[in-house]
Protein backbone atom coordinates (compact mmCIF):
# COMPACT_ATOMS: atom_id res chain seq x y z
CA UNK A 1 0.00 0.00 0.00
CA UNK A 2 1.78 3.16 -1.07
CA UNK A 3 1.64 6.44 0.76
CA UNK A 4 0.73 9.16 -1.72
CA UNK A 5 2.29 12.52 -0.92
CA UNK A 6 1.73 15.61 -3.08
CA UNK A 7 4.82 17.71 -2.46
CA UNK A 8 5.01 21.10 -4.24
CA UNK A 9 8.73 20.74 -4.88
CA UNK A 10 8.63 17.11 -6.00
CA UNK A 11 5.18 16.31 -7.33
CA UNK A 12 3.46 13.04 -6.45
CA UNK A 13 5.74 10.93 -4.28
CA UNK A 14 4.91 7.33 -3.41
CA UNK A 15 6.56 5.56 -0.52
CA UNK A 16 5.79 2.53 1.67
CA UNK A 17 2.88 3.05 4.01
CA UNK A 18 -0.60 4.31 3.41
CA UNK A 19 -2.61 7.49 3.29
CA UNK A 20 -2.90 10.64 1.26
CA UNK A 21 -0.68 13.55 2.22
CA UNK A 22 -0.14 17.11 1.11
CA UNK A 23 3.35 18.39 1.66
CA UNK A 24 3.96 15.72 4.28
CA UNK A 25 0.79 16.30 6.26
CA UNK A 26 -1.84 13.58 6.24
CA UNK A 27 -5.30 14.37 4.95
CA UNK A 28 -7.41 12.42 7.42
CA UNK A 29 -10.75 13.16 5.80
CA UNK A 30 -12.43 10.60 3.62
CA UNK A 31 -13.49 11.55 0.12
CA UNK A 32 -17.04 11.73 1.45
CA UNK A 33 -15.97 14.15 4.19
CA UNK A 34 -14.10 16.34 1.72
CA UNK A 35 -17.27 16.49 -0.34
CA UNK A 36 -19.32 17.66 2.63
CA UNK A 37 -20.50 21.17 3.21
CA UNK A 38 -21.71 22.12 6.70
CA UNK A 39 -24.30 24.87 7.13
CA UNK A 40 -25.88 26.24 10.29
CA UNK A 41 -28.82 28.39 11.24
CA UNK A 42 -31.11 28.99 14.20
CA UNK A 43 -34.81 28.79 14.90
CA UNK A 44 -35.40 31.50 17.49
CA UNK A 45 -38.43 30.03 19.25
CA UNK A 46 -39.21 26.36 18.78
CA UNK A 47 -42.47 26.73 20.70
CA UNK A 48 -44.02 29.20 18.30
CA UNK A 49 -45.12 28.17 14.81
CA UNK A 50 -42.35 29.65 12.72
CA UNK A 51 -39.63 28.79 10.27
CA UNK A 52 -36.03 29.50 9.42
CA UNK A 53 -34.05 29.19 6.21
CA UNK A 54 -30.50 28.59 5.11
CA UNK A 55 -29.25 29.05 1.56
CA UNK A 56 -27.07 26.40 -0.06
CA UNK A 57 -24.10 27.86 -1.93
CA UNK A 58 -23.52 24.59 -3.83
CA UNK A 59 -25.73 21.98 -5.37
CA UNK A 60 -25.57 18.60 -3.70
CA UNK A 61 -27.44 16.12 -1.57
CA UNK A 62 -28.78 16.91 1.88
CA UNK A 63 -27.78 13.90 3.98
CA UNK A 64 -28.39 14.94 7.58
CA UNK A 65 -29.85 17.63 9.81
CA UNK A 66 -29.05 18.01 13.51
CA UNK A 67 -30.82 20.15 16.09
CA UNK A 68 -29.66 21.33 19.49
CA UNK A 69 -32.10 22.73 21.99
CA UNK A 70 -31.36 26.00 23.79
CA UNK A 71 -33.39 25.09 26.89
CA UNK A 72 -36.10 22.82 28.23
CA UNK A 73 -39.48 22.67 26.51
CA UNK A 74 -42.74 21.56 28.07
CA UNK A 75 -46.38 20.60 27.47
CA UNK A 76 -45.77 18.75 24.21
CA UNK A 77 -43.17 17.65 21.72
CA UNK A 78 -41.96 20.04 19.06
CA UNK A 79 -41.82 18.71 15.53
CA UNK A 80 -39.42 20.23 13.05
CA UNK A 81 -40.15 19.69 9.38
CA UNK A 82 -37.23 20.01 7.00
CA UNK A 83 -38.34 21.25 3.60
CA UNK A 84 -36.49 21.38 0.33
CA UNK A 85 -38.20 23.11 -2.54
CA UNK A 86 -41.34 23.30 -0.43
CA UNK A 87 -41.54 19.52 0.06
CA UNK A 88 -40.88 17.73 3.30
CA UNK A 89 -37.59 15.84 3.46
CA UNK A 90 -38.42 14.51 6.91
CA UNK A 91 -39.06 15.53 10.48
CA UNK A 92 -37.20 15.80 13.76
CA UNK A 93 -39.16 15.26 16.95
CA UNK A 94 -37.86 17.05 20.01
CA UNK A 95 -39.32 15.33 23.05
CA UNK A 96 -40.51 17.60 25.83
CA UNK A 97 -40.26 15.00 28.61
CA UNK A 98 -36.85 15.25 30.20
CA UNK A 99 -35.74 17.90 27.73
CA UNK A 100 -32.81 20.13 28.59
CA UNK A 101 -30.51 22.65 26.99
CA UNK A 102 -28.11 20.95 24.64
CA UNK A 103 -30.37 18.04 23.67
CA UNK A 104 -29.33 16.91 20.21
CA UNK A 105 -31.79 15.27 17.82
CA UNK A 106 -31.21 14.38 14.22
CA UNK A 107 -32.59 13.40 10.87
CA UNK A 108 -30.04 11.23 9.14
CA UNK A 109 -29.94 8.94 6.12
CA UNK A 110 -31.40 11.59 3.87
CA UNK A 111 -30.77 11.65 0.15
CA UNK A 112 -32.49 14.84 -0.89
CA UNK A 113 -31.15 16.82 -3.81
CA UNK A 114 -30.55 20.53 -3.23
CA UNK A 115 -29.73 23.04 -5.90
CA UNK A 116 -27.29 25.92 -5.78
CA UNK A 117 -28.70 29.13 -4.30
CA UNK A 118 -31.84 27.46 -3.03
CA UNK A 119 -33.19 27.62 0.50
CA UNK A 120 -33.63 24.78 2.94
CA UNK A 121 -36.46 25.50 5.32
CA UNK A 122 -37.02 24.19 8.82
CA UNK A 123 -40.45 24.73 10.26
CA UNK A 124 -41.57 24.11 13.83
CA UNK A 125 -45.13 23.15 14.63
CA UNK A 126 -44.90 25.06 17.90
CA UNK A 127 -46.13 21.99 19.74
CA UNK A 128 -44.24 22.83 22.92
CA UNK A 129 -44.17 25.67 25.39
CA UNK A 130 -41.21 27.76 26.56
CA UNK A 131 -39.61 30.23 24.19
CA UNK A 132 -36.25 28.57 23.54
CA UNK A 133 -34.08 28.53 20.46
CA UNK A 134 -32.91 25.56 18.42
CA UNK A 135 -29.62 25.61 16.58
CA UNK A 136 -29.52 23.58 13.38
CA UNK A 137 -26.66 21.99 11.47
CA UNK A 138 -27.05 20.70 7.92
CA UNK A 139 -24.75 18.27 6.12
CA UNK A 140 -24.68 18.49 2.33
CA UNK A 141 -22.63 16.29 0.08
CA UNK A 142 -21.47 17.75 -3.19
Amino acid sequence: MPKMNVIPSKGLVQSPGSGFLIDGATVASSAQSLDQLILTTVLLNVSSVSETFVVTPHAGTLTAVYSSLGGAIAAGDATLTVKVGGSSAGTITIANVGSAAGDVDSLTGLSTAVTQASAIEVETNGGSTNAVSVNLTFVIER
Partner: protein
Amino acid sequence: MPKIDFNDAKGVVSTAGSGWLRNGVEISASAGQLDRYTLTGKITGLNSGGEHVYVPVPATGTLVAVYSSVSGDPGAITLIRVHNAAGSSLGDITIANASSAGDVDMLLALSSAVTAGTYLRAISDNGATNAVDAYITFVIER
Protein backbone atom coordinates in the same frame (compact mmCIF):
# COMPACT_ATOMS: atom_id res chain seq x y z
CA MET B 1 9.15 20.88 -9.91
CA PRO B 2 6.13 18.99 -11.23
CA LYS B 3 2.56 20.14 -11.16
CA ILE B 4 0.23 17.24 -10.39
CA ASP B 5 -3.23 17.23 -11.89
CA PHE B 6 -5.77 14.57 -10.89
CA ASN B 7 -7.58 14.75 -14.18
CA ASP B 8 -10.78 12.82 -14.87
CA ALA B 9 -9.99 12.35 -18.54
CA LYS B 10 -6.26 11.68 -18.30
CA GLY B 11 -5.50 10.30 -14.85
CA VAL B 12 -2.56 11.68 -12.89
CA VAL B 13 -0.81 14.22 -15.11
CA SER B 14 2.57 15.62 -14.18
CA THR B 15 3.78 18.78 -15.90
CA ALA B 16 6.30 21.51 -15.22
CA GLY B 17 5.39 23.79 -12.36
CA SER B 18 4.25 23.12 -8.81
CA GLY B 19 1.11 22.47 -6.82
CA TRP B 20 -1.72 20.02 -7.21
CA LEU B 21 -4.82 20.38 -9.25
CA ARG B 22 -8.18 18.77 -9.85
CA ASN B 23 -9.15 18.86 -13.52
CA GLY B 24 -6.79 21.75 -14.12
CA VAL B 25 -7.83 23.89 -11.16
CA GLU B 26 -5.29 24.36 -8.39
CA ILE B 27 -6.19 23.28 -4.86
CA SER B 28 -4.41 25.69 -2.54
CA ALA B 29 -5.73 24.33 0.75
CA SER B 30 -3.31 22.55 3.06
CA ALA B 31 -4.02 19.10 4.49
CA GLY B 32 -5.12 20.72 7.75
CA GLN B 33 -7.47 23.10 5.97
CA LEU B 34 -9.04 20.29 3.94
CA ASP B 35 -9.72 18.41 7.14
CA ARG B 36 -11.50 21.36 8.76
CA TYR B 37 -15.11 22.37 8.95
CA THR B 38 -16.74 25.25 10.79
CA LEU B 39 -19.89 25.71 12.82
CA THR B 40 -21.45 29.01 13.81
CA GLY B 41 -23.82 30.28 16.46
CA LYS B 42 -24.94 33.48 18.14
CA ILE B 43 -25.16 34.46 21.79
CA THR B 44 -27.86 37.09 22.15
CA GLY B 45 -27.49 39.62 24.96
CA LEU B 46 -24.08 39.22 26.58
CA ASN B 47 -25.37 41.29 29.50
CA SER B 48 -28.10 38.79 30.34
CA GLY B 49 -27.37 36.07 32.85
CA GLY B 50 -26.10 32.85 31.36
CA GLU B 51 -26.95 33.60 27.75
CA HIS B 52 -25.57 30.79 25.65
CA VAL B 53 -25.71 28.89 22.39
CA TYR B 54 -25.63 25.16 21.76
CA VAL B 55 -24.46 24.10 18.32
CA PRO B 56 -24.96 20.50 17.16
CA VAL B 57 -21.84 18.71 15.95
CA PRO B 58 -22.38 16.69 12.73
CA ALA B 59 -19.00 14.95 12.45
CA THR B 60 -16.49 13.64 14.96
CA GLY B 61 -13.18 15.48 15.18
CA THR B 62 -11.06 17.81 17.24
CA LEU B 63 -12.05 21.34 18.19
CA VAL B 64 -8.98 23.43 17.39
CA ALA B 65 -10.20 27.03 17.64
CA VAL B 66 -13.15 29.22 18.59
CA TYR B 67 -13.65 32.81 17.39
CA SER B 68 -16.08 35.49 18.51
CA SER B 69 -17.14 38.76 16.99
CA VAL B 70 -19.12 41.28 19.02
CA SER B 71 -21.91 43.49 17.72
CA GLY B 72 -20.80 46.46 19.84
CA ASP B 73 -19.12 47.66 23.02
CA PRO B 74 -20.01 45.27 25.85
CA GLY B 75 -19.34 48.04 28.42
CA ALA B 76 -17.21 45.77 30.58
CA ILE B 77 -14.87 42.85 30.18
CA THR B 78 -16.89 39.82 29.15
CA LEU B 79 -15.86 36.19 29.07
CA ILE B 80 -17.25 33.64 26.65
CA ARG B 81 -16.70 30.18 28.06
CA VAL B 82 -16.60 27.23 25.67
CA HIS B 83 -17.87 23.85 26.85
CA ASN B 84 -18.02 20.42 25.28
CA ALA B 85 -21.00 18.11 25.65
CA ALA B 86 -19.49 16.60 28.78
CA GLY B 87 -19.78 20.01 30.41
CA SER B 88 -16.05 20.50 30.61
CA SER B 89 -14.72 24.00 30.10
CA LEU B 90 -12.36 24.22 27.15
CA GLY B 91 -11.32 27.78 27.91
CA ASP B 92 -12.51 31.37 27.81
CA ILE B 93 -12.56 34.02 25.13
CA THR B 94 -12.02 37.47 26.63
CA ILE B 95 -13.90 40.36 25.06
CA ALA B 96 -12.35 43.62 26.21
CA ASN B 97 -14.29 46.56 27.55
CA ALA B 98 -14.72 49.28 24.92
CA SER B 99 -14.56 46.76 22.08
CA SER B 100 -16.06 47.92 18.83
CA ALA B 101 -18.60 46.19 16.64
CA GLY B 102 -16.87 43.52 14.61
CA ASP B 103 -13.91 43.09 16.94
CA VAL B 104 -12.71 39.51 16.84
CA ASP B 105 -11.36 37.59 19.81
CA MET B 106 -10.34 33.97 19.88
CA LEU B 107 -9.32 30.86 21.70
CA LEU B 108 -6.61 29.05 19.77
CA ALA B 109 -4.42 25.95 20.10
CA LEU B 110 -7.29 23.83 21.37
CA SER B 111 -7.18 20.07 21.03
CA SER B 112 -10.49 18.83 22.34
CA ALA B 113 -12.24 15.79 20.95
CA VAL B 114 -15.84 16.30 19.84
CA THR B 115 -18.28 13.59 18.82
CA ALA B 116 -20.92 13.56 16.12
CA GLY B 117 -24.39 13.92 17.56
CA THR B 118 -23.27 16.00 20.54
CA TYR B 119 -22.96 19.75 20.91
CA LEU B 120 -20.55 22.58 21.55
CA ARG B 121 -21.65 25.33 23.90
CA ALA B 122 -20.53 28.92 24.32
CA ILE B 123 -21.86 30.90 27.28
CA SER B 124 -21.45 34.49 28.45
CA ASP B 125 -20.33 35.22 32.01
CA ASN B 126 -22.77 38.14 32.05
CA GLY B 127 -19.92 40.60 32.43
CA ALA B 128 -21.28 42.96 29.79
CA THR B 129 -23.39 45.93 30.78
CA ASN B 130 -24.63 46.64 27.27
CA ALA B 131 -27.06 44.48 25.31
CA VAL B 132 -24.69 43.34 22.59
CA ASP B 133 -24.42 39.98 20.88
CA ALA B 134 -21.52 37.67 20.05
CA TYR B 135 -21.21 35.64 16.87
CA ILE B 136 -19.27 32.43 17.48
CA THR B 137 -17.32 30.30 15.00
CA PHE B 138 -16.04 26.86 15.99
CA VAL B 139 -13.26 25.23 13.91
CA ILE B 140 -13.18 21.43 13.96
CA GLU B 141 -10.60 19.17 12.39
CA ARG B 142 -11.62 15.67 11.36
